[in-house]
């Protein structure tokens, strides 16, 4: 029962009615334009009979004229604001590129037509209905004369019925607005919300930012945790030896001071990075920039043998992340094996981007099970992109294998693994 009455008393209903009446207000100038045009058309044709083609042409003309204004990007902003405030829907934010895209403009046009067509039409119910209701209500009390006539017609309705009709019509109009308004609220996110492509782009950016922040947070945790451990231990030792070995205590205090200072510098650096809008300032590198990366690596003393296949149709996100993976792989090689020769093979096979990086394991090969920070970064990226990776030493060489699907597909998981690559995990034991 309450849910039946609610539309009558809900503020939302009346806000939505305002929205519909807005459509009516917009409809008026258009109606004037159409009336004018019809007049001219009629004059030109001397009242010739209208056939089907004429009707279709006129409809097309209506649509073109009515929706033209909606192709201005600013109108989309206006529509979104109106929908959010008057219809009470929350529309996910839209990027400036999304706002200007033709797909969005077409959707704005559809919304605009609906607003002035369906919304405006519904609004007429109020424009016509309210005076009608007033007329019906006053009718029993009006004497004979103009008060009993409606639009020049004499109504033969008994006075009681006219009051009852008026009392029934009022809630009917309100319900009508509530229903049509709810319909508009449903459609608004589809036509005024960000497009799927826009949402994807946003997600991608968020993922990148998150990846970057995760990495920074981890580094911060590692470095600050390490520094605090060193200072705690040294301080504990210094307290114990303060009287018996003041020289040790002095050294410990110096170590604490220096460790603390270094940790703070680290903290400053990372917090600075976190505050920056990473995506806005640094241009994203892709596989097309590999040449520069190899040059840079060579100048650091690491020889790079690159074998790059055709990388034509790789989605931008895969291209960017693959660049980062190669970058981290090269950094790892330098860090763990020193100035060695690294072989990089990259190519697309069976709709997967396959990357193999090998280098001599050297004496200080990464022996950590699960790998260090670099490998973790690679694994994180690979997992997010739905790919697989493996890393490990064999025959005196350190080898990292990565495979990332180039097209998203629900691949049969049982087919995975025969290439020796595990899902998102690292074999290094």
């Amino acid at each position, binding site marked *: 029962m309450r849910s039946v009455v609610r539309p009558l008393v809900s503020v939302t209903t009346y806000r939505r009615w305002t929205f519909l009446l807005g459509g009516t207000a917009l409809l008026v100038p258009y109606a004037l334009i159409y009336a004018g045009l019809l007049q001219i058309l009629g004059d030109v044709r001397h009242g010739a009979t209208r056939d089907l083609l004429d009707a279709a042409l006129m409809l097309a003309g209506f649509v073109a004229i009515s929706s033209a204004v909606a192709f201005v990007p600013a109108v989309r902003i206006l529509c979104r604001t109106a929908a959010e405030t008057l219809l009470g829907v929350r529309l996910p934010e839209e990027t400036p590129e999304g706002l200007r895209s033709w797909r969005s403009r077409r959707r704005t046009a559809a919304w605009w037509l609906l607003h002035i067509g369906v919304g405006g039409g519904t609004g007429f119910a109020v424009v016509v209905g309210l005076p009608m209701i007033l007329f019906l209500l006053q009718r029993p009390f009006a004497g004979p004369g103009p008060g009993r006539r409606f639009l020049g017609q004499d109504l033969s309705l008994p006075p009681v019925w006219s009051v009852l009709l008026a009392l029934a019509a009022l809630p009917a109009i309100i319900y009508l607005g509530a229903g049509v308004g709810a319909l508009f609220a449903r459609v608004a996110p589809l036509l005024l919300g960000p497009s799927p492509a826009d949402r994807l782009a946003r997600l991608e950016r968020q993922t990148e930012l998150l990846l970057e922040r995760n990495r920074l947070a981890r580094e911060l945790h590692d470095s600050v945790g390490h520094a605090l451990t060193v200072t705690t231990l*040294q301080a504990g030792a210094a307290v*114990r030896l303060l009287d018996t070995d003041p020289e040790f205590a002095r050294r410990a205090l110096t*170590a604490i001071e220096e460790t603390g200072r270094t940790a703070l510098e680290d903290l400053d650096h990372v917090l600075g990075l976190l505050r920056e809008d990473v995506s806005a300032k640094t241009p994203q590198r892709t596989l097309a920039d590999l040449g520069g990366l190899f040059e840079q690596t060579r100048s650091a003393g690491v020889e790079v043998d690159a074998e790059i296949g055709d990388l034509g149709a790789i989605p931008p996100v895969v291209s960017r992340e693959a660049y980062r993976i190669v970058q981290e792989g090269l950094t790892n090689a330098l860090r763990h094996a020193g100035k060695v020769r690294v072989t990089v093979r990259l190519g697309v096979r069976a709709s997967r981007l396959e990357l193999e990086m090998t280098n001599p394991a050297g004496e200080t090969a990464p022996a950590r099970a699960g790998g260090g920070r670099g490998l973790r970064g690679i694994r994180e990226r690979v997992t997010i992109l739905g790919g697989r990776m493996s890393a490990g030493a064999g025959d005196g060489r350190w080898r990292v294998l990565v495979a990332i699907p180039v097209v998203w597909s629900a691949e049969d998981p049982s087919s995975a693994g025969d290439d020796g690559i595990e899902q998102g995990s690292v074999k290094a034991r």
Partner: protein
Amino acid sequence: MTDVLIVDDEPLIRTGLRAIVDAEPGFAVVGEAADGAEVLPLVRSLRPDVVMMDVRMPAVDGIQATRSILAGIPEPPRILVITTFENDDYVYEALRAGASGFLLKRARPEEIIQALRTVAHSDSLLFPAAIRGLAARHAGGREAERMRQARLTEREGEVLELMAKGRSNAEIAGELVVSVETVKTHVGNVLAKLQARDRTQAVIAAYESGFVSPS
């Protein structure tokens, strides 16, 4: 005298630990190593009672070093894993490899000494809450199955529970009101039935199978 070997790649950690251990009567640091690769020859020549072992080291990590000590040396020293962070899966791997306990590097000096004493002079294990939590996280059906197939007697189950609480044989004997020899027999049976190489492995199996729960 308890001889201690310190293995850590960070010099400041080594000097700090050395100062604390050396200052304690009855304890002496007999050597230091900066990497797991140096540990085996040092253990052979110095014969320490306890090795304080860092987990993450650049070349050979603490897990591998622990394995090679326990496999390659008759009557090996007890191994106390030292670590910066308690929620570290590597630490868990080191315990699995047979280390007797784990200690946070930020522990108070007296706690450090107490930990050394515990692992050096008794057969009890050092399993702080964090490690018990890690063990429970590693829980899997395979371990539970192994525990079922072991068919421990009720008494053996009690002994395993007390082992998991870090009790030494003497303490278990006291609680169950039996002789230490009897406890030793029970412990031996538990290890054999669980196919565990040592006490640590048996206790880890107890946690992973859900036989005891971390609390």
